[in-house]
């Protein structure tokens, strides 16, 4: 029944969703390969949750198609659902139920035989670190444990595709690390879509990242690819002791590969200089030689490469 192994786990084509006049998702297309941990990143309200709701068959798209492991969400709705495990934002759970009752209920809804259900529940309790918590009422659990119950619920039927919407929101730093490690472990065998508005979350766990803003895709690639496209080339900052600021600027500007030099007001006898380079080549040595040849002295030379945070702010600003 499942498609060939080299075909994508999820393929989204020209997907749009409009709520009246509001265009929540605008014509996005992307693919998630099998076995990949895919980061779906965007600021709040960018259309992440709407996209996930469409993939999980909660709402249909306005236009476009979603194919999960060869099955179309519109035509084979129920079959698609069996392939997906979903943890919505804030892990909505039935607060009045016990953890064990809840997992048994989900197993039943997922059509699992009582025997398999019991063994899967035991397994999930192990994997998600819920040992000793099965007799607790869900409403009385801490946020971190609720999130784990949500994860256990999403994985109980051993889904091919696991969709996690903001799985670490509202957790404390320790819990975030724990959940992140858990997801990493899960990601070794499963295809995971990880939605977040926090970049460091996604860059720590995902092999591919897609950035969405105002319903449109603004960037996609591996974390290093994204970093490369952040700023063109590199920036260097230096502190140079020289009498004539204008001469410094002119000399440095004449070096091949340097696109811009700005010299600030002197502080403690040194001029702060910012040098922008066009290409992604290391110019540190050339810069150093130039400074020494001109008889200036140097107290600091630093090469800065753009961080992923920069990419994210750049792409999603405004």
């Amino acid at each position, binding site marked *: 029944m499942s498609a060939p192994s080299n075909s994508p786990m999820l393929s989204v084509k020209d997907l749009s969703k409009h*709520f*009246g006049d509001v265009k929540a998702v605008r014509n996005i297309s992307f693919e998630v390969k099998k076995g990949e941990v895919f980061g779906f990143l965007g600021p709040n309200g960018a259309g992440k949750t709407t996209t996930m*709701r469409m993939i*999980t*068959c*909660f*709402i*249909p798209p306005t236009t476009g198609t979603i194919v999960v492991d060869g099955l179309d969400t519109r035509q084979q709705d*129920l079959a698609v*659902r*069996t392939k*997906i495990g*979903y943890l*919505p934002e*804030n892990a*909505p*759970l*039935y*607060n*009045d*139920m016990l953890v064990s*009752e809840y997992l048994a*209920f*989900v197993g*039943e*809804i*997922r*059509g699992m035989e009582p025997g398999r259900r019991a063994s899967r529940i035991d397994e999930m309790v192990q994997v998600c670190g819920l040992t000793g918590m099965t007799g607790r009422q869900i409403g009385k659990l801490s946020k971190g444990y609720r999130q784990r119950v949500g994860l256990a*619920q999403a994985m109980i039927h051993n889904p091919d595709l696991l969709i996690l919407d903001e799985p670490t929101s509202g957790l404390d730093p320790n819990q975030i690390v724990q959940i992140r490690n858990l997801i990493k472990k899960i990601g070794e065998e499963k295809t995971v879509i990880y939605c977040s508005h926090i970049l460091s979350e996604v860059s720590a766990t995902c092999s591919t990242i897609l950035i969405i803003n105002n319903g449109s895709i603004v960037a996609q690639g591996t974390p290093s690819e994204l970093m490369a496209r952040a700023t063109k080339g590199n920036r260097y900052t230096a502190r140079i002791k020289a009498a004539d600021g204008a001469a410094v600027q002119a000399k440095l500007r004449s070096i091949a590969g340097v696109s811009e030099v700005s010299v600030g007001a002197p502080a403690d006898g040194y001029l702060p200089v910012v040098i922008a380079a066009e290409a992604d080549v290391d110019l540190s040595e050339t810069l150093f030689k130039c400074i020494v040849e001109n008889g200036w002295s140097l107290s600091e030379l630093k090469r800065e490469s753009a961080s992923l945070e920069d990419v994210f702010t750049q792409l999603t600003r405004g």
Partner: protein
Amino acid sequence: MNNIRAIAKKEFRSYFISPIAYVFIVVYLVATNFLFFQGFFIINQADMRNYFGLLPWIFLFFVPAITMRSWAEEKKVKTLELLLTWPVSDLEVVVGKFVASFCLLAIVILCSLTVPITIMLIGKPDLGPIIGGYAGSFLMGSAYLAVGLWVSSLTENQIVAFIMGVVVTFILFIIGNPFVTMVAPGFLVPLFNYIGLGNHFESVGRGVIDSRDILYYLSVVGFFLFLNVRSIARRKWE
């Protein structure tokens, strides 16, 4: 079918996890017994006519109390978003919830069998109208439940669901009452008489179980469960 059973089982259990079911059963039995028996010995007749006369009014407040939580809570806590991404159809969820609420109502109604038993101990009642009355209670209760569930699916506030449930069932009940049909325009009277939730209950309560009355209640249930499915599916084209 398995999905309906799983949902119904879970919903039914959740009535008993919170004190809601126990409170409901106790208050219902105390209220109906008190209201009935205070007049029973004065009239001094071994029948349950007055008991069944009370029921449409009692149900008016009790049945929306059973159903108010069903959808409103799921919407508020957002568990609906998860529930409807599991491999179940909207219809299965609706039917599952209906079955669960019906089971609770059935338990309540069966608990009230102490009344006819008491009457049988002290007199010789005619069993026909009593059996008819109980059959009617199940049918009318089902109709109220379907209305209440639908109303609950329209809001995420339980209190609103309760009040709206009372209002909607009251309208459906009063519409067939002489109080309304006397002043309603002539051409609407037969329609109102037919739609009125209480009218069919009276004829069943006389001990005459007419297939038309059964059909009426089943179609009310079907109609409101259908509306329920539609209102759950509304998310799809909003």
